[in-house]
C-alpha cells in the first residue's frame, strides 16, 4: 500500500468514514517498522489501539489463579444472622406504624373537637375579653383577701385566750419531760378536762393560720 492511499485512508479515518476492514488495514500498516517520516507520528495511535485490544496475561497469572481457587475451596464459616434480627425488623415496623397512628389520632382528635372558637378580629373585642379575664382574676384575688380578713375578724371577735391555751400546752410538755411514765394518763386527763377547748383551739388555730398563708401567697 503506498503512502498516498494511506493518507487518503487516514483522511477518511478522521472523518469517521472508514470501515472496519479499512481500520484494520491502517493498523496493519502502522505496525510495520519502516514507515515514511510523514506518517510516523500516527503510528502510536494505531499500535496503542492494537495493544489495548490484545491484553497480555502476566507471567504469574496461572499461579495467582491457582492460589485463588485454593482459597475458594476452603469452607468459610457460615454467615448466621441472629435469631432476633427478623423480630427486630417486625418490631421496628410495628413501632413505626403505631407511632404514626398515635400521632394521626392525636392530630385528628385535636381537629375534631367540638369547640366554638372566637377569633377576635376587632381589637376592641379582644380588649374587652382580656380586661374581662383580668377583672375576673382580680375579683378572685379580692374575694380571697376579703375572706381572709373576714376570718381574722371573726377569730378576733371570739376573744380566745391564746396565752391560756399556750400555757396549757407548755405545762403538758413540761409534765411529759419530767414524768414520761405518766404521760398517757395525764395527757388523757388534760384532754378530757379541756376537751371542748382544745378541740376548738385546734380548729381556731387552723382557721387562724390558713388565711395568713393565703394572704402571703397573693
Amino acid at each position, binding site marked *: 500500500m503506498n503512502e498516498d492511499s494511506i493518507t487518503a485512508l487516514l483522511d477518511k479515518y478522521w472523518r469517521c468514514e472508514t470501515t472496519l476492514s479499512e481500520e484494520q488495514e491502517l493498523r496493519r500498516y502502522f505496525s510495520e517498522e519502516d514507515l515514511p517520516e510523514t506518517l510516523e507520528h500516527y503510528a502510536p495511535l494505531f499500535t496503542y489501539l492494537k495493544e489495548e485490544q490484545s491484553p497480555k496475561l502476566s507471567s504469574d497469572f496461572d499461579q495467582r489463579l491457582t492460589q485463588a481457587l485454593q482459597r475458594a475451596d476452603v469452607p468459610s464459616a457460615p454467615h448466621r444472622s441472629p435469631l432476633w434480627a427478623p423480630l427486630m425488623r417486625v418490631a421496628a415496623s410495628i413501632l413505626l406504624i403505631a407511632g404514626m397512628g398515635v400521632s394521626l389520632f392525636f392530630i385528628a382528635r385535636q381537629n375534631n373537637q367540638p369547640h366554638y372558637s372566637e377569633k377576635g378580629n376587632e381589637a376592641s373585642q379582644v380588649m374587652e375579653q382580656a380586661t374581662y379575664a383580668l377583672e375576673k382574676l382580680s375579683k378572685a384575688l379580692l*374575694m*380571697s383577701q376579703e375572706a381572709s380578713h373576714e376570718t381574722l375578724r371573726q377569730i378576733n371577735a371570739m376573744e380566745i385566750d391564746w396565752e391560756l391555751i399556750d400555757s396549757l400546752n407548755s405545762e403538758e410538755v413540761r409534765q411529759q419531760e419530767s414524768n414520761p411514765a405518766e404521760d398517757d394518763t395525764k395527757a388523757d386527763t388534760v384532754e378530757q378536762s379541756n376537751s371542748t377547748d382544745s378541740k376548738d383551739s385546734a380548729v381556731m388555730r387552723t382557721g387562724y393560720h390558713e388565711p395568713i398563708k393565703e394572704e402571703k401567697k397573693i
Partner: protein
Amino acid sequence: MMRTILFAWLIALPAMVSASDFVTLFMERCAEGSRPLNNVNIGKDMLHQMAENATDETLKEAFGKLNSIRIISSDSKRDSRHYFRKADELVREAYADYREVVSVNEQDTRISVWLKEVSDEEQHLILLSLDEEGKFTVITVTGVIDFNSIARLSGSLKDKPELMEQTN
C-alpha cells in the same frame, strides 16, 4: 444512630402533639358537642399592642408582661356546673405541679386559682370560676403575672368604659 433518632422521634411525637396547656387539654377531653363552649385566645403580640394603647397605667402594667390569656366560658347554667366539675377534676389530675393559691366556695360562687411558677419571668395561672349567675369560666394566664396590678383592676374597669375602646 439514625434508627435511634427515628425511634425517639416516633415516641416523642405523640407526646409533643398531646402536650398542651390547660385550655387545649380541657377542650380535648371535656368539651361536648351538646354543651357549647366559647373559647377566646389572646396572644403575646396582641397583649403587648393593647398594653401600648392602654391609657390606664394599671392595665398597661398588667398586659405588658403577659404572654397569653385564654378563656373558655359557658353561658348555660346546667352546663356550667358540669364543666366546672370536669375542669376541677382535670386540674387536680393532670396539673399536679400547680398549687392552689385561692379557693373560694360560697353558696352560689366557686372560684379556684392554681399557680405554677416556671421561673421568675414565667408564671402559669389557671382560674376556674362558677359565678352567681351560673356562668362557668376558665381563664389561663401565662407570663409575668403582676398580682398587685391585677388586684387593683377590680371594679376600676367598669368605671372606665373608654378603656375598652382604646385599640379601636
